């Protein structure tokens, strides 16, 4: 399987504080790769660097065989990023928001229409898309944002804590949407500290703590290697 993203020796420091201390991983085409770890482990910083929001202090990222740092415009064309605490413009109607975001990616009006229709289908919000985003519940907003991230069928979707703050049913919906889109060809790099969710959702996992990758592999491989019943036990074992 070819790599969509290859990260080598990635470092990020803010003054004297090191957020990411030299990590390596890759995301293969059509897979869900998850970074799991506690709060402050460096997951969000890594995702922000890959999403071109932050620049790395050192290291190399190759995206679709191109230098990620030198060609951020190319990267932005091919990725979509869903931040953990993302919001949408509250005074816009849901449909207008999707249309506005589609306007950045679509080359033609028909393509824009196609993106918006796809997003509307993902959200399953129906007529509520005709109302203002400010009136949506947290779950509805998250679905809208996830639909925005997936509607263009990006090469790589970067999802930071995609189910954070959602109730059980909304979280299940979001996971199913993610899995469905991977089947349609989108690769996913996501982060979470919910290890049970990751076990269900991801093909491969990178355990991260204090800015370093502790171990990488499929959930099954990691469980066997650490002789553990679940990823939480794997994580505890790899910390020792």
């Amino acid at each position, binding site marked *: 399987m070819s790599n969509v993203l290859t990260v080598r020796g990635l470092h990020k420091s*803010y*003054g004297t504080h090191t957020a990411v201390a030299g990590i390596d991983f890759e995301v293969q085409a059509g897979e869900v790769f998850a970074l799991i770890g506690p709060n402050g482990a460096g997951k969000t910083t890594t995702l*922000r660097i890959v*999403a*071109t*929001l*932050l*620049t790395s202090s050192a290291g190399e990222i190759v995206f679709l065989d191109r230098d990620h740092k030198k060609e951020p*415009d190319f990267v*932005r*064309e091919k*990725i*979509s*990023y*869903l*931040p953990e*605490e*993302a*919001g*949408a*413009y*509250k*005074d*816009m109607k849901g449909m207008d928001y999707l249309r*506005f*975001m589609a*306007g*950045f*990616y679509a080359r033609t009006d028909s393509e824009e229409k196609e993106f918006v229709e796809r997003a509307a289908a993902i959200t399953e919000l129906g007529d509520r898309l005709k109302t203002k985003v400010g009136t949506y519940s947290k779950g509805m907003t998250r679905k809208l*944002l996830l639909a*925005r991230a997936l509607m263009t069928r990006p090469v790589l979707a970067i999802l930071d804590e995609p189910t954070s703050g959602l109730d059980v049913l909304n979280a299940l919906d979001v996971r199913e949407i993610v899995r469905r889109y991977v089947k349609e060809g989108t690769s996913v790099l996501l982060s979470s500290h919910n290890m049970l969710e990751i076990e269900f959702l991801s093909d491969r996992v990178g355990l991260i703590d204090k800015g370093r990758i502790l171990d990488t592999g499929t959930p099954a491989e990691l469980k066997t290697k650490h002789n553990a019943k679940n990823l939480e036990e794997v994580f505890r074992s790899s910390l020792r």
Partner: protein
Amino acid sequence: MKRFKNLLQKELKELVTKQLIISLAFTVLIFNMVGQVSKKEIQKAIGIQTISALDQDGSAGSQALLKSLESARFKIIDQSGKNKDEALAAAKAGDSKLLLVIPAGFGDSLAELRPSEIETYSFMRSFSLIGARGQVVVQSVISALNEALSNNFLAEKLPGIDPAGLKRPIKSRDFVVVRDRTAEGSANMIAGMLSQQSMLIPIVLMMIVIYSSQMVISAVAMEKQNKTLETLLTVPIKRTSIITAKMFAAGFVGLISAGVYMFAFKGFIGGIGDEAASAGAKAGGAALMAKLGLTFDTTGYIILGISLFLAILVALAMAMILGVLAEDFRSAQTMIMPMMFMVMIPYFISLFADINTVSLPVKILIMAIPFSHPFLVSQNIYLGNYGMIAAGLGYMLVVFVILVIYAARIFSTDKILTMKLRFGKKKTQTV
């Protein structure tokens, strides 16, 4: 271009809200209403005013004084037959602005050319300047009477001598020289007219700078507050396009808002200014200004326009950077303060001092503030200081370019997410 248009439309839609339109319409309405009310009050003050008079003398002299007042558009209510306290009470109870008491012996004193005293009691029912206008007019009538009486006396005692020449043996003819032109007139009058004319520039500038800057700062701060900035920064649109779209939308809406406010303000000032100023004085001043070449031609207006435009661009670029420092909408409101000071400092200094003659450090400070230059443009045009004008325009352009490059740099680097101004801490921190 399609992406830029998409973002620009969104920025404009966010700024042009129902609330903005209602607030602008309301302002125009209120200012016009206040202007109309003021206009009516001024017309009342300039028109026939009611005063009471208690003539305790009843001489030809006192009658002449009252007749003069009548011809100066006063309606006089006669309080004769009352004592002073009764007259005061009656005048106070009515709508008289003032009670004039002419004491007994007034006419005799006049005839003997001894100083005569009259008393005026102004009823201050409000503390507006217009409310006190009645007394000013009475004083000017008395002053005219004094002039006439002393002239009569001098003409009687010293026939063949012009009383005016006797009272003012030294006469001055005043000339004003501006560059290579000379005209007879008062330098005070010229200065007054110029400051009145150029008063509009700082007001326009202040309005536009404040409105546009507030909109840019809020636009960036709202993206942060609504957590939409991160998403916007990862979509395929150039960071410079994000800056330009926000600046363009805020500049456009700011200009329109300022224009509406100026229109409303003009309605308000028009109510006061036009009525209060004498048409004759205006025409005389305008003729003197024209003689001295102190008028704006098309080039002058173009230069002034360019100067204002550059000042607005500087303000927008500055606001963009301040917007990044703001964490949310509330802190964005405080960010506008430094910009307001930067506009107000040159305005107030130019009101009370000549910028060309202040001490060097103050001059450097004023010149370093980009917003000072539009204030100086009109006087530099009048004085033909085109070098100064060019330097001012050049300076503003350089400041704008530097600010835009810096803003673009902030938007293209981590600073857009990490730069914050923390109040109460010593410096801007990068977290």
